[in-house]
């Protein structure tokens, strides 16, 4: 019966207008980001070159006048820095201006594709949350849930089939869209001959990132569905998530902890970025004999595994609560 229910839910999922909008939204996000990738990887225009040349000429005059002194100062500072860190390198030999320094930054696929994919992931996560919520909440708002339960009264089966289908289908859709996005970014930069220095590692990293996005997106859909079972309204689901991010992540955890390592948004970021590391507090500063002050801070490190487990635990708790409530609560 459960397999049959799941097949029904798959048919319903694929036929839902909300899912069509999800796909349209995902593809739109990919195309918009792809367009941005194309723009940012374009070669400089004649105007850009002329402006860069003019700026270069101005800087060159300054350099001829003060360059030697600037290099000497730089080397002096570098020597002092090497007393604390023997590997300190202030690139004093590369201070001379060049025309390229004054050209607009030109992105390449190799350097920027992961960043672009992260931008797409934000849309995917939001859309998936909404799809998960509406997939369940619409049944309550239309009353179709009560009709459904007169055909299949085992609420655990009904809950399970919906949760599994919305999770898997949305995750698969996100994986496909991520693959599409990588292809679009490649094409957009290739048009401009700006794919950069790509290696096997470039694509392995992108594949790994796509996988993490797909898992996170599936989790967002499951969370949306679980909250849909709890609140029975899509708008309420969105309000709960925003409220959580503001009240719990933004206020409570910040107030209670110096390093809010349990924040949902932070762990999500850590998961998507395959880890997170940041100096979050100054523990002490020392000024050396040369007058340079160095400070030590507390490092907040969240590994990808830790982040994944934290998010999975949060979703599991909400889902379990939703199941208990759905099994016990009256359905109008």
């Amino acid at each position, binding site marked *: *019966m459960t397999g*049959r*229910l799941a*097949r*029904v839910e798959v*048919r*319903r999922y694929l*036929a*839902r*207008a909300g899912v069509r909008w999800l796909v349209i939204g995902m593809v739109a996000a990919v195309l918009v980001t792809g367009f941005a990738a194309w723009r940012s990887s374009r070669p400089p225009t004649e105007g850009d070159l002329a402006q860069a040349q003019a700026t270069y000429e101005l800087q060159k005059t300054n350099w001829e006048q003060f360059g030697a002194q600037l290099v000497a100062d730089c080397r002096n500072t570098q020597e002092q820095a090497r007393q604390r860190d023997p590997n300190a390198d202030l690139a004093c030999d590369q201070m001379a201006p060049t025309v390229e320094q004054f050209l607009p930054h030109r992105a390449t696929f190799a350097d920027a594709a992961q960043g672009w994919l992260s931008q797409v992931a934000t849309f995917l996560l939001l859309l998936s949350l909404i799809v998960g919520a509406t997939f369940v909440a619409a*049944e309550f708002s*239309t*009353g*179709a849930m*009560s*009709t*459904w*339960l*007169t*055909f*299949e*009264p*085992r609420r655990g089966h009904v809950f399970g089939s919906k949760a599994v289908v919305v999770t898997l289908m949305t995750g698969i859709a996100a994986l496909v869209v991520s693959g599409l996005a990588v292809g679009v970014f490649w094409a957009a930069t290739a048009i401009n001959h700006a794919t950069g220095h790509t290696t096997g590692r470039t694509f392995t990293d992108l594949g790994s990132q796509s996988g993490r996005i797909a898992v996170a997106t599936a989790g967002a859909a499951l969370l949306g569905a679980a909250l849909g079972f709890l609140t029975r309204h899509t708008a309420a689901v969105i309000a709960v998530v925003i409220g959580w991010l503001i009240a719990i992540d933004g206020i409570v955890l910040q107030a209670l902890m110096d390093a809010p390592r349990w924040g949902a948004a932070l762990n999500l970021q850590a998961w998507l970025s395959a880890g997170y590391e940041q100096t979050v507090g100054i523990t002490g500063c020392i000024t050396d004999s040369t007058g340079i002050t160095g400070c030590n801070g507390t490092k907040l490190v969240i590994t990808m595994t830790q982040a994944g487990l934290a998010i999975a635990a949060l979703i599991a708790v909400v889902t379990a609560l939703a199941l208990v409530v759905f099994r*016990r609560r*009256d*359905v*109008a």
Partner: protein
Amino acid sequence: MADLAVSTRGLRKTYRARGRRVVAVEALDLEVPAGGVHGFLGPNGSGKTTTIRMLLGLVRPDSGDMSVFGTPVPRGLPAVVGRIGAIVEAPKFFWHFSGRRNLELLAQAIGVDRHQVGVVLGDVGLADRADSDVRTYSLGMRQRLAIAATLLKDPDLLIFDEPTNGLDPAGIREVRSTMRGLADRGKTVLVSSHILTEVQQIADTLSIVARGRLVASGPVHELLSAGGAAPVRVGVADRDAASHLLRGRGWTVSDEGSDLVVTGATSLDVNRALALAGMYAHELRTERADLEQVFLDLTETEPLASTGRRAK
């Protein structure tokens, strides 16, 4: 005791509303015999829909026992749900799906062949509009689609909750005919309604509820006869003399417009008494006892909403 399709014992359900408990169903003992149409009659808010929802496992009772075909529910509902087809209040479907797709999903869920969808859509006269979105259906069409959905399982027990709400006269007649036809095929039809005439026309047996409690139950003809002697309406030229005469016989007489209404006597008694006194009625009619009168006699509550007319 005849086999029971539905049985409840001591059923109770309360809701929390505006900070206080509201009793929807109280100590309800309901028995629906297998086969035939059983009317579940009561005014709006008397607990009919709540009772049906509890039987279907949509609402949890506070206390009491329920069974369907001898199987305790809601615990045993998965075992008997295949024998139950139900429409609770307004038919509810996925609005952006066609009628056919809605039924196909339900059919797939219960393992019924897709071919059966076309059959039941034809049975309820929806074959022509089967591929239109449900949101474009009239209320009557949605009601017929709901009936088609219940027929997918070929159930032994059909539960219709206020099935003719919002339907036009032709639709009402069609639904009544469908329910009667199902009962004639050996099915048990439990129909809840607040409309007296509807229940009176099709029900074999009846349960009357008021304020969540059962106030009467049994075959319709027995409940009607339990209402006592029917009043007799008399049209006579000399109303004052006739009224005096009939009261003198110990009967109750009331003026209603140009007529007298006599209770406690048959039309034959009244006719004989008037004739012996040399008075002749130009109208003499026994008012038919109906469920509204029975209901009022039994419950002494406010009159029920009715599409029919009260006896005049």
